[in-house]
């Protein structure tokens, strides 16, 4: 442990930063890849099927079908990369990245473990240190960027189904963003700051002091809006194979499609990290006052995986909404509810809390 600490002290700050970036983004990306498998296997189990369990390493080691991820990756990588003649080539190439990068970037401010002091310096386990002045506003802003990925993908492929999907989903994302932001604002208010580490510290280690108990209404609104933000069922208006073929990614094939799919899952990871941070105490370990660093990281990852699983779980429970239902829900239910939540907490604070 001492050796590890001295190694830490001698590493320059930039190396520590690079290490964090690599760990976070490699971790999130591999979790996203694993969740493509979890989605298929989980949905199969929910529907009394078995799901992909055949793919095996070297044709022998089956490991419950986890090699399916590799097989899918290799297959996608070697497929022909077709570009429609009428497509806008530049944007068509750019779109998967526009979808993928914001999905990952949102993760940057989220502390995935407890900060620790070693040799007089504090080390923060988040890519951007707390006190950077952006706080939770950053993932919200980046979440807004995610609209471009879908919209550019849809527009550049010059396909009517794609454009319909892109328009629908961008409208949904924009309208749900308001409800989501208002729900987050009431957390900022009760916390008295918008830095994620502050929000986590304010929630404490007892599960009944977490924001889920303090603001259940806000949680419901935020959680629902996250589904619209990540374009997951029941709000996956970008796709919708029964109505508009495959929606915004109709024309995408091979690695581009793979990136778009990965973007969705990375977005899911970021969203579940946000939910865990804002409402479930982030890295706080329930009932443990001063957890070790590793335990806090493990607890955060456990929460992250659980909420990602809830995303999958809900997808295979609830059917897709109709577009007008979605808009009604967004503007007539979610927005007023988050306002009620905001006003209620403002009133409570004014009463001397």
């Amino acid at each position, binding site marked *: 442990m001492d050796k590890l600490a001295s190694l830490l002290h001698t590493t320059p700050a930039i190396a520590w930063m690079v290490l964090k970036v690599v760990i976070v983004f490699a971790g999130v990306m591999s979790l996203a890849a694993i969740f493509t498998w979890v989605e298929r296997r*989980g949905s*199969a*189990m*929910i*529907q*009394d*099927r*078995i799901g992909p369990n055949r793919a095996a390493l070297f044709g022998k080691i089956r490991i419950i079908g986890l090699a399916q991820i590799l097989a899918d990756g290799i297959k996608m990588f070697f497929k022909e990369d077709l570009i429609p003649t009428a497509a806008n080539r530049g944007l068509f190439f750019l779109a998967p990245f526009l979808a993928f990068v914001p999905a990952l970037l949102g993760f940057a401010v989220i502390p995935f473990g407890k900060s620790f002091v070693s040799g007089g310096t504090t080390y923060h386990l988040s890519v951007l240190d707390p006190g950077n002045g952006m706080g939770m506003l950053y993932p919200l802003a980046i979440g807004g960027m995610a609209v471009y990925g879908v919209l550019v993908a849809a527009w550049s492929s010059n396909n009517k189904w794609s454009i319909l999907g892109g328009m629908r989903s961008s409208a949904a994302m924009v309208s749900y963003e308001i409800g989501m932001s208002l729900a987050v604002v009431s957390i900022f208010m009760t916390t008295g700051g918008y830095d994620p580490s502050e929000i986590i510290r304010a929630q404490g280690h007892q599960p009944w002091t977490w924001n889920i108990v303090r603001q259940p209404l806000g949680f*419901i609104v935020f959680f629902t809006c996250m589904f619209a933000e990540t374009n997951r069922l029941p709000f996956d208006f970008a796709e919708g194979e029964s109505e508009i073929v495959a929606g915004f990614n109709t024309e995408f094939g091979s690695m581009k499609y793979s990136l778009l799919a990965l973007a969705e899952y990375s977005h899911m990871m970021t969203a579940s990290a946000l939910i865990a941070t804002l409402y479930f105490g982030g890295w706080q370990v329930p009932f443990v006052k001063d957890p070790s660093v590793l335990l806090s990281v493990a607890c955060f990852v456990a929460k992250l995986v659980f909420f990602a699983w809830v995303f999958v*779980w*809900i997808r*295979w*429970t*609830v059917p897709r909404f109709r577009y007008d239902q979605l808009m009604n829900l967004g503007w007539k239910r979610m927005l007023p509810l988050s306002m009620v939540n905001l006003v209620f907490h403002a009133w409570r604070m004014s009463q001397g809390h």
Partner: protein
Amino acid sequence: MGVVVKKAELSWLDRTYVWPVMKGMAITFEHFIKQLFTPTSKRYTIQYPEMKKEMPDGYRGLHELKRFEDGAIKCVACFMCQEACPARCISIEAEEFSDLNITQGFEEKRPAQFKIDMLRCIYCGMCEEACPKDAIWLRKDYEVAAYDRLSMQYGKWDLMNTYAEIDGKDRISQDPTPTVPRRTIVM
């Protein structure tokens, strides 16, 4: 005359949408857990190469030419099946043989060649119906596939051995009694 369709009245709890979704999630989770802890052999899915479906009685699968205990073919080359076959996939060539021990007559008829073109066969079971000696059965093997057309032409010995492993019988490739050219027998 239109029919008035009454809308289902939802309680306030159902109209919140949150509670019904949670109920639905409970149902899906129950299915998930149940399926997760069901052993593979008891799941609905039959994982094909390792597990095979037990076909129901009366299933018409791959043919078998039946044999007597000594390995003599039951078929008497009466051509009934060839006539009955709507797909015209059976072709028989008859021959004569003498067998004083087992069968009742001195001279008997049997197929020298009995070919079924499995690519043509429609598994209708007409040959089985037509056979007066119960010599051809359509049994439960459904895995009739090959890489080339020639191996789908089943000959007499292929057809006699199709179920040999399943029944625990020997594979045979020779008639117990030799064929007798017709002209050599003294009448």
